[in-house]
């Protein structure tokens, strides 16, 4: 299956449901920086600094940004693998920000994660059968035979042969390992899957297979995805809506078409201008940003992007712009709009 065929697949996908599945309100995740003799907190790395967004049932929200901008931290915080510093995570109307222990474990059935590195995300001492059956053993009281049948079913759904059941992770290639990871995430039939750069560690030829598999499974199980990536073409292929992150902040969030047709935030414009153009005759203007990403430990005042923004004005360093709806469904955090 190639990419063109798959692109056709998205346009036909129905998008009628508008029910909110996940509501993120003013989420902040700081990593404390300890220093000195008594290991006191001397500062915070503001990995996620006040972001809000919602994900509707059945849709895919893409999250893009360069390395270190807090995409993965956002994903992990939503799954409560990291402790949020502030803000609220509301899943299906229930606040899961502060629950812990058994209640958190129960809640985790509904949201699962596909990890970035297929080589580190499978326990090397477990066979594939053990890996995929573990979530079932943790939550469901099923007989051994039922569990095995279920695992076999999952294996076939993610395109792995039944022989894989007794094999170990190291006997598979990266793409196949990622399929195992997807099967594990699917085992509990979750409502939300957070895919944290699921294809960035894979060869380009294998990437499209895994992406298409994710799409097929979305239709089949009515899944909702939070799709984290740094590859703009991958995100465009996968997402219904896209959020752009910069230095722990969400700078723009819009529908797929709207964002690519008319990027509003100067950062998004620069990102989109960096997508390679397959046609060499077609010349396009490339916006090249100056300087480096500032340290998230000591972010710039005002708009986090003003130090590198080609359109920065004086007031940009004073006022932090908030995310506002400029066009229907198109939110941007920039004083220009």
């Amino acid at each position, binding site marked *: 299956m190639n990419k063109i065929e798959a692109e056709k697949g998205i346009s036909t996908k129905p998008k009628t449901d508008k029910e909110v599945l996940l509501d993120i309100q003013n989420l902040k995740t700081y990593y404390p920086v300890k220093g000195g003799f008594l290991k006191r907190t001397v500062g915070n790395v503001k990995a996620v600094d006040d972001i809000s967004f919602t994900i509707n049932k059945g849709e895919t929200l893409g999250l893009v940004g360069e390395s270190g901008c807090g995409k993965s931290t956002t994903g992990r915080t939503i799954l409560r693998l990291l402790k949020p510093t502030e803000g609220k995570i509301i899943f299906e109307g229930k606040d899961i920000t502060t629950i812990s222990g058994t209640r958190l474990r129960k809640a985790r059935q509904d949201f699962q*994660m596909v990890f970035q590195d297929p080589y*580190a995300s499978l326990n090397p*001492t477990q*066979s594939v059968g053990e890996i995929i059956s573990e979530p079932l053993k*943790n939550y469901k009281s099923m007989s051994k035979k039922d569990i095995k049948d279920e695992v076999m079913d999952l294996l076939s759904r993610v*395109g792995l042969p039944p022989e894989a059941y007794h094999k*170990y992770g190291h006997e598979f290639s990266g793409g196949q390992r990622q399929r195992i990871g997807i099967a*594990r995430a699917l085992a509990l039939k979750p409502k939300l899957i957070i895919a944290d750069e699921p294809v960035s560690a894979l060869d380009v030829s294998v990437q499209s297979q895994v992406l298409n598999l994710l799409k097929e499974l979305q239709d089949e199980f009515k899944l909702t995805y939070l799709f984290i990536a740094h590859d703009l073409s991958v995100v465009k292929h996968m997402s219904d809506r896209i959020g752009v992150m910069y230095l722990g902040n969400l700078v723009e969030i819009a529908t797929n078409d709207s964002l690519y047709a008319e990027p509003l935030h100067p950062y998004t414009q620069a990102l989109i201008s960096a997508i390679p153009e397959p046609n060499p005759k077609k010349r396009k203007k490339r916006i090249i940003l100056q300087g480096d990403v500032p340290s998230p430990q000591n972010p710039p005042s005002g708009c986090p992007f003003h130090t590198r923004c080609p359109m920065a004005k004086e007031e940009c360093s004073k006022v932090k712009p908030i995310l506002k709806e400029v066009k229907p469904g198109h939110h941007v955090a920039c004083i220009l709009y």
Partner: protein
Amino acid sequence: MVNVTAGTAKPQEKSINMSPFAIARRKFLRNKLAMISSFFLLTVIIFSFLAPYITTQDITKVNISLMSLEPGGEHVLGTDKSGRDVFTRLLYGGRISLVVGFSCTALVILFGTVVGSIAGFYGGVVDSILMRFTDFVLNFPFLVFVIVLNTILFGIVNGLYVLIGVISLLSWGGVARIVRSKILAEKENEYILAAISIGCKPSKVIIRHLLPNVLSTIIVQATILFASMIVAESALSFLGFGVPQSIPSWGNMLSASQEADVLRDKPWIWMPPAIILVITILSINFIGEGLKDAFNPKSQR
């Protein structure tokens, strides 16, 4: 959907579906030095534990008429200064030395692993408290502590248990540190996050996911510990603070060489335990090396 990578599964591997431990086992079985050492160690263990069936000599009864006999005849390795058969004492002594070494190792590994894995997994305050406690225990002067405790508890508890308990109580710190550092490195892997997100309790994450992946380090550590525990027992017994004098052990037998005339003129009394001790320690260390190689994914044999 077709898997493009299906053909690239390692063709050189004859048997498929091998767990990392199965691969390590195969590598170990091909290591000659380690296999010879294992064979030797097994022989020592079998002989020591079958001692009552091999010789019928009394190990404690003093016999003045048979004092310090040279090897040969009825007494293969001669007799010591109290007229007891050296060979018989060597076999029974091996029993004690190995039992002390093994029990100490087991206790030390158990305690060190529990403390180290809890400290490593939870981190933060728990880690700080447990590791400072570990530092505290590591700072005890070993020899002084053993001597004092042995003296206090003498006659109240069986001397052998006191020794095992005291050695174990003072030696788990190193293992705890090693296990903690391994767990700290291992828990950064994404499969640990995955295990948490599929609903494993912390205890299950440690036991099912973390410990199997640091087990190779623990096993290697255990073999090295086993050797050093036997040495510790011998050293203490040599000084007279270890196993009670009435029970033969390799260290107790060696302590006879504290007398100058035994050391100079009667080598048959102290040479056998010395030699067997050295070879046993060496072979345990070779086994440890072999295991280390076997568990190392980068070494191909």
